[in-house]
């Protein structure tokens, strides 16, 4: 991350080029990771729910790339990519999915509920939208302490129907909190299509009601996402108050691996796959004069190695001991040692 941040802040062309290639690497790594996770799930090596973000890689990559260390991110349940872009070790992430001792939650919770606060990534619950109040609270801390950090709260268009989302956005608007709300609009809340979820066209329109800007961008266009996110994050960091980015995108797989998504039209899936963010970005790199075929081969080899290492690490990691189910419930209360004056 430190690398990407330095590069993002620089105007030097060489560094910008390097940054743009790094974005490509992240998208490719996320896609490869997602595909491997789906396969491991079929092989019963990952037992719990798996919520694939395949197809939505440009959103998490484009939004997280311009962030700085110390910025707070609350991802949604299919944002595996957030963890990778923020620098969480892929081995620990894989171990998390396999319920291993070395995973983020040490086997306590499945998939992405185990956050990594060392990397300022919050583990969301399954109550969708409930992490937006948390993101607002993180932003409140930055504001109170006058820290030049931002919080990012991801949510789906499905979660936008929940009261928590309204409460968080309203409060953020009132306090002008340094928080960026990012809606990943993938058109389906599990099986329920957009037109049964909301009566307006864009989630972003709601931002006006909270007194801040809302933007709509193609979530399958990495370049568009990253350019918008860079601008928005800069303004929010400088104290301009919250903003909302709505990324129109599509998930390739079902809500979870158990869901064959038969409620969707095959034609619709095909249409969105034809707008896949990866070849689209490759087209851009090619037009900028890169030898994309060579870069792709190099990166494929790199991601294969990273994944092999991650899977090996996870598979070789021990399972937690049964009694550990009772650990990690309470933090020590070290400042609570004073005795009752009358005891």
């Amino acid at each position, binding site marked *: 991350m430190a690398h990407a941040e330095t590069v993002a802040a620089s105007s030097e062309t060489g560094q910008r080029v390097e940054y743009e290639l790094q974005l490509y690497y992240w998208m490719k790594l996320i896609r490869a990771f997602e595909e491997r996770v789906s396969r491991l799930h079929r092989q019963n090596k990952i037992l719990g729910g798996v919520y694939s973000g395949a197809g939505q890689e440009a959103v998490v990559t484009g939004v997280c790339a311009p962030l700085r260390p110390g910025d707070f991110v609350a991802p949604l349940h299919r944002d595996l990519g957030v963890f990778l872009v923020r620098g969480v070790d892929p081995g620990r992430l894989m171990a998390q999915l396999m319920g291993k001792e070395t995973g983020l939650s040490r086997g306590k919770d499945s998939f992405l509920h185990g*956050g990594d606060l*060392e990397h300022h990534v919050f583990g969301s619950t399954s109550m969708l939208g409930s992490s937006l109040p948390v993101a607002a609270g993180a932003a409140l801390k930055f504001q109170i302490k006058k820290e030049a950090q931002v919080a990012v709260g991801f949510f789906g268009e499905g979660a936008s129907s929940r009261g928590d989302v309204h409460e*968080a956005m309203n*409060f953020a608007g009132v306090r002008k909190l340094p928080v960026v709300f990012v809606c990943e609009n993938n058109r389906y809340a599990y099986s329920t299509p957009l037109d049964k979820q909301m009566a307006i066209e864009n989630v972003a329109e709601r931002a006006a009601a909270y007194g801040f800007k809302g933007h709509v961008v193609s979530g399958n266009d990495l370049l568009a996402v990253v350019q918008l996110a860079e601008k928005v994050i800069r303004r929010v960091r400088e104290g301009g108050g919250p903003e909302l980015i709505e990324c129109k995108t599509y998930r390739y797989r079902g809500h979870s691996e158990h869901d064959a998504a038969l409620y969707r039209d095959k034609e619709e899936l095909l249409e969105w796959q034809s707008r896949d963010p990866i070849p689209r970005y490759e087209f851009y790199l090619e037009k900028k004069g890169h030898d994309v075929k060579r870069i792709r081969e190099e990166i494929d080899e790199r991601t294969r190695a990273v994944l092999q290492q991650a899977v090996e690490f996870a598979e070789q990691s021990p399972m937690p001991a049964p009694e550990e189910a009772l650990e990690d419930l309470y933090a020590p209360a070290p400042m*609570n040692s004073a005795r*009752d004056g009358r005891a």
Partner: protein
Amino acid sequence: MEATYLAAINQALHEEMRRDENVIVMGEDVAELGGAFKVTDGLLAAFGEDRVIDTPISEALIVGAGAGAAILGMRPVVEMQFGDFISCAFDQIVNTAATLRYRHGGRAACPLVIRAPSGAGIHGALFHSQNPEAWFTRVPGLKVVAPATAYDAKGLLKSAIRDGNPVVYFEHKRLYRSIKENLPDAEFTVPIGPAEVRRPGRDLSLITYGGTLHQCLDAAGIVAREDGLSIEVLDLRTLLPLDREAILGTARKTGKILIVHEDRLTGGIGGEVAAIIAEHAFDSLDGPIRRVAALDTHTAYSPPLEEFILPNANKIVAAIRGLAAY
């Protein structure tokens, strides 16, 4: 210096905010107004609007944002204007805050205090009288306290603020201005966990907490005078975790147990206390474990209804006599 229960809470907030600049107070009407009950009075003037924050009517946000600030090192004290409204924040408390450390593999802490003015007996009717503590006492990751004296109100709040975990702090509205005591000038805290024997006795134990402690003490006085009974009164003070040693200690001492709480009978904490005693001190019992609690209905408004529903000293006296004669 003499302080009411309400003033004791206010003092704790002032002292902790002075001691630790990471302590912030957040909730509906807590800043300008100083709280619906004036519990947070004077904080805005003393600590400014960055640390004493009026929020919109958004209980889920209040707790969720508190959790977000807490995991980054702040120590928020958030207020539910009435404990009844805590149901609007239920998910943020039991799912976001209570599981936070667990699902982060022990590598996160959520030092958050949720203050909830609770309790009946003030003609508050269905939505301003509730005692929702038992919704939370079966949630691992939380601590739950319910002080019954001004001393404990101050000392337990200070401990809650310094604790590394989410603490739900139930303060009884009827006690706000109805009780007062001399508090030490010197700094003190009351640890979360230990119960306290408020009145030692031999014949029968009352186990209680919160608003009904005072009714129990009154009842114990009445039966001492009129029946010559020696009643022990144990104040639980902390409801999660329960002080099992103190509960079993008083059960083994007197052999007769009457559990009293203002929360409803069914599913109330009394059931858990009774189970602990039945499992571990059965041999010491000289009679059935009995309970006096609010009737299994909603806390109705009209005075005859409210009085019929809630425990009071007379009902406790009658129950003591029945059990003592067993």
